[in-house]
């Protein structure tokens, strides 16, 4: 292989020499080279080892269809990219690249040493061989995984960023070849806005090869490209792969913005890659086609390449892929490739399985043209040295038959063409099935969805003039203009699939997954009939290339073996993505702190100044506990608990969901969504409410204050706020549109400071002069309007701890000021801020449930021992009421909420711990839902759900944690502390 003299149309820039590293060695290329073209120019033939057999592999293609040349870029850095295709990678100065395969290296691969065993390693080998004993499966898997796969995942965090971009356009054109360019220009000239996408670094597609061959094509390309670039209606995205087309013409495209730049000159302010979410009124698919390799023995040997790729390397990169080439195929395109090779100064051998093409221009130049022959085998130690060719004969009944006694042709390159497969992928993403055309010997796009057009070689056009004409036609149609249909396409003369007899020789279909023609034969012999099953048994069409070069050949081979028409075998399903997409670009900017919003109460800065530890509740950052000095969680919680029980604590309760409910029917609405009664709740009063779903299970609870007869303020659990708001809106809008009720989420509008403990009244009297806090005039479950620290406030006397407690609600912007003022004024009472952990202990001591911790969607109000909160005689049945009398919800022996005390007071059970009736029993009768050490009681306490537990008070049962311990516990009432409620009025 060598670099040719400078050509007019080459896209490399010889003035810029690029130094790069491959496998630890130093190489040079030119600006504009891909890694593949630079390696070919450096005569690097071996570029990978195969997946299963460790066979030597070289570069086969020039584009995204490449199955072999997988490489790792910038290993062990933040720029690490595994399994990139060398044919797509543009080299930049000091690029570090290495092969993605090879155990331990591509020069010496242990799998290749197993060669004598390879013939036993057919499809299904692993399934059949490593069957028993089943207990060894994990061991087998561990060992076999080491032998399979490609490059490992990056180990460093990604150094670059990604984003998403939403776009709208009248017409989106996928593909910048002849058809795409013509379509984009026609649509834009007709007045549509056009977005033109192409995966390559510059527009032109396969037309660049035609442009090098034909001055007329070169002039057309230059003219059209210039017109598009200057057109105000056209936006062009290059290095952009449209990888999925969804319903309603949502086109997803990956733009590689900085991958081609040297690491040092990438702009950190710009994203590396961008995902474009494009909504297009019309989509034109001008995606082109991929050449299929020809099937013959050892067709995976380095030096076997796609014929069209050889021409692309020659014209775009001025790289001659072989000095003694042999061109072989079943269609007319190979003669153009042979002419290109003659132009490059070589004397190729042309082998055509058909007879009849007029190649006199070539034979006159001394080119050996063997018609009625095909290659049956490639031979060579490390790369192609010879080809064996044999006579072919075609009959309608048997198809192609290849003769015996082959001749040997010496060559160093086999450029092969087995026809062209249209890139129907995007058209199929929305469920369309491609159809098989015997004229084209290819699966063609159905294009049966609205607002979609196909043009160019994806639709069977075989020359650039036909593609351009069809592109212009669909461009006008997409822009809503009348257009004359194009004449019938000039067909590429292409013969049926040809595959020599299957013998011991390896004829590869899917190079990336090492699937051979004989594997398909075996699969079918074992009665796999559907192509989807054959695919999964043999791995045909898996991997990072998804069978771009191998699938259709595989389908043809399967059809031949099953003696079915190819159309009847059909294709496997084409699913997004068309080519691999980085995880980074899918996540976009939603990483790190942006992956989920963090919500803070207005008091956050104060909590941080106090040294609080935080826990995430819903999306809220809530103070978990407030350690002093070197206190750990348990020490801090013990101190906080005792402070609240014995004197005074304060907590930030701002995160509770708050829903403002107004309207003449607000009271009736509450009665329908809560299980309890709301008819008599007067303004100035609060009530605890329990909410069920229609299945009768508890979904939320909270206190609702009556502000006026038509105005209520509901609180929900912190994590349930959004869900409950949606739940209420849904019922209001769908089932009860006759109720005049308006819901507003006001969670963020109010902040809440709880003042909790026996001395709470004394502090409140200091802070607020216009409210009478005496127990008689401001009883439990009342609320008052007043002025606290000069701020208008709603003060609710409600409690989640059993202590005297006032929750001061102020407009959110005053939250921090109020909190700090209470903290300062409370110093006289040694006020102690406490977090969620202390709150949990205090409520458990009183047996108050937390919805979602003590309930799990299978607990009714009766199961939770809260029959007092259920009112069955309301005029309209509340949500879930009917379900409470279902045979299953009403039966005896349901799990019920009870308290548990361990025999050993210091033993704290694990939450979730299973409960059994007898020490030796394995039958679970319940589980622990909440468990803490209670500082005020000086012992452990737990809440649990136990089958029929409310009838078992005083019974001894056993907790069985994972440690095989058996812990004796006694079932007790769930209220552990102050059962007589003597503390609720605090210090009088």
């Amino acid at each position, binding site marked *: 292989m060598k670099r040719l003299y400078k050509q007019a149309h080459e896209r490399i820039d010889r003035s810029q020499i690029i130094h790069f590293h491959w496998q630890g060695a130093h190489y040079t290329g030119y600006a504009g080279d891909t890694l593949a073209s630079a390696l070919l120019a450096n005569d690097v033939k071996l570029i990978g080892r195969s997946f299963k057999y460790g066979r030597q592999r070289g570069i086969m293609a020039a584009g995204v269809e490449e199955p072999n040349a997988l490489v790792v870029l910038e290993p062990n850095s933040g720029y690490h990219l595994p399994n990139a295709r060398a044919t797509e990678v543009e080299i930049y100065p000091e690029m570090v690249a290495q092969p993605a395969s090879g155990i331990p290296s591509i020069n010496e691969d242990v799998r290749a040493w197993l060669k004598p065993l390879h013939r036993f390693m057919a499809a299904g080998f692993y399934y059949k061989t490593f069957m028993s004993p089943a207990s060894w499966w994990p061991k087998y898997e561990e060992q076999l995984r080491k032998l399979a796969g490609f490059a490992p995942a990056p180990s460093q965090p990604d150094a670059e960023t990604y984003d998403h971009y939403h776009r709208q356009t009248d017409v989106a054109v996928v593909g910048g070849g002849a058809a795409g360019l013509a379509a984009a220009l026609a649509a834009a000239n007709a007045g549509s806005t056009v977005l033109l996408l192409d995966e390559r670094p510059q527009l032109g597609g396969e037309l660049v090869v035609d442009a090098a061959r034909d001055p007329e094509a070169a002039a057309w390309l230059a003219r059209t490209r210039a017109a598009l670039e200057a057109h105000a209606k056209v936006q062009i995205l290059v290095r952009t792969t449209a990888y999925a087309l969804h319903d309603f013409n949502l086109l997803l495209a990956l733009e590689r913005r900085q991958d081609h730049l040297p690491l040092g000159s990438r702009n950190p302010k710009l994203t590396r890659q961008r995902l474009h979410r494009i*909504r297009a009124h019309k989509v034109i698919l001008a995606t082109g086609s991929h050449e299929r390799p020809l099937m013959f023995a050892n067709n995976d040997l380095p030096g076997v390449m796609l014929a069209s790729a050889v021409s692309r390397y020659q014209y775009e990169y001025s790289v001659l892929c072989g000095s003694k080439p042999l061109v072989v195929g079943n269609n007319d395109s190979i003669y153009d490739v042979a002419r290109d090779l003659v132009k490059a100064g070589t004397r190729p051998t042309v082998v055509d399985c058909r007879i009849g093409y007029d190649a006199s221009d070539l034979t006159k130049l001394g080119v050996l043209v063997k018609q009625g022959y095909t290659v049956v085998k490639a031979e060579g130690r490390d790369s192609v040295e010879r080809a064996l060719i044999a006579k072919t004969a075609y009959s309608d009944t048997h198809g192609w038959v290849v003769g015996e006694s082959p001749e040997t042709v010496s060559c160093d390159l086999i450029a092969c063409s087995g026809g062209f497969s249209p890139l129907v992928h995007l058209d199929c993403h929305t469920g369309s099935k491609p159809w098989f055309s015997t004229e084209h010997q290819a699966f063609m796009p159905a294009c049966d969805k609205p607002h979609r057009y196909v043009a160019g070689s994806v639709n069977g056009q075989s020359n650039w003039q036909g593609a351009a004409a069809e592109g212009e036609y669909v461009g006008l149609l997409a822009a809503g203009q009348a257009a004359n249909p194009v004449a019938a396409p000039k067909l590429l003369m292409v013969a049926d699939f040809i595959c020599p007899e299957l013998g011991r020789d390896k004829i590869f279909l899917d190079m990336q997954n090492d699937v051979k023609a004989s594997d398909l034969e075996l699969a079918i012999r074992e009665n796999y009939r559907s192509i989807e099953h054959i695919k999964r048994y043999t791995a045909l069409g898996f991997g990072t290339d998804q069978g771009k070069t191998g699938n259709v050949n595989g389908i043809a081979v399967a059809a031949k073996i099953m003696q079915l028409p190819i159309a009847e075998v059909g294709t496997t399903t084409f699913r997004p993505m068309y080519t691999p997409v980085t995880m980074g670009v899918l996540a976009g900017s939603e990483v790190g702190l942006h992956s989920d919003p963090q919500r803070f109460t207005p008091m956050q800065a104060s909590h941080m100044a106090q040294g609080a530890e935080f826990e995430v509740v819903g999306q809220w950052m809530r103070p978990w506990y407030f350690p002093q000095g070197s206190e750990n969680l348990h020490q801090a919680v013990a101190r906080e608990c005792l402070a609240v029980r014995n004197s005074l604590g304060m907590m930030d309760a701002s995160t509770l969901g708050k829903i403002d409910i107004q309207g003449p029917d607000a009271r009736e609405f509450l009665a329908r969504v809560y299980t309890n009664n709301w008819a008599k709740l007067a303004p100035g009063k609060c009530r605890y409410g329990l909410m069920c779903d229609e299945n009768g299970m508890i979904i939320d609870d909270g206190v609702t204050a009556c502000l006026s007869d038509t105005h209520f303020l509901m609180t929900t659990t912190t994590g349930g706020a959004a869900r409950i708001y*949606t739940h209420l809106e849904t019922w209001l809008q769908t089932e009860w549109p006759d109720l005049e009720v308006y819901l507003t989420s006001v969670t963020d509008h109010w902040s809440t400071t709880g003042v909790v403990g026996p001395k709470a009244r004394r502090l409140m009297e200091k802070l607020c002069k216009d409210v009478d806090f005496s127990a008689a005039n401001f009883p439990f479950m009342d609320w008052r309007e007043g002025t606290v620290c000069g701020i208008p406030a709603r003060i609710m006397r409600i409690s989640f701890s059993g202590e005297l407690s006032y929750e001061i609600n102020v407009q959110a912007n005053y939250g921090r000021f109020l909190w700090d003022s209470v903290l300062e004024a409370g110093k006289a009472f040694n006020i102690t801020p406490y977090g969620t952990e202390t709150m949990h202990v205090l409520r458990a001591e009183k047996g108050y449930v937390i919805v979602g911790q003590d309930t799990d969607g299978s607990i009714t109000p009766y199961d939770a021992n809260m029959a007092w909160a259920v009112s069955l005689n309301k005029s309209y*049945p509340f949500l879930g009421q009917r379900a409470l009398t*279902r045979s299953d919800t009403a039966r005896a022996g349901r799990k019920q909420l009870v308290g548990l005390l361990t025999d050993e007071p210091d033993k704290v059970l694990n939450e979730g711990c299973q409960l059994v009736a007898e020490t030796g029993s394995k039958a679970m009768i319940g589980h622990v839902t909440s468990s803490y050490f209670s500082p005020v009681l000086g012992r452990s306490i737990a809440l649990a759900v136990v089958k029929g537990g409310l009838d078992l008070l005083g019974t001894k049962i056993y907790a069985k944690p994972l440690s095989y311990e058996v812990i004796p516990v006694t079932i007790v009432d769930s209220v552990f502390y102050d059962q007589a409620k003597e503390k609720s009025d605090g210090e009088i």
Partner: protein
Amino acid sequence: MFLIHCPYCGELRDEQEYRCAGEAFIQRPGLDCTDEQWGDYVFNRTNPKGKVIEQWAHSAGCRKLFVVERNNVTNEIYAVRTFESYKEQA
């Protein structure tokens, strides 16, 4: 990815703004229904192949619920209507 015309906002918007809220027009039985009828109401849905009539909510928009009639095989949307429009029809 659907484009859905919100009958309240009056705009064709991306599916990401919406939430599907399940089958529409499910009748809520009274307290006197049998356990089986209640079970059907709570748990069982018709789940047809082809035309479905669903409730959708414009959850990142006006937060209103409305009815979408669509084909769950071809993804064609036949109609987007308010609940009121069905009442007027009846």
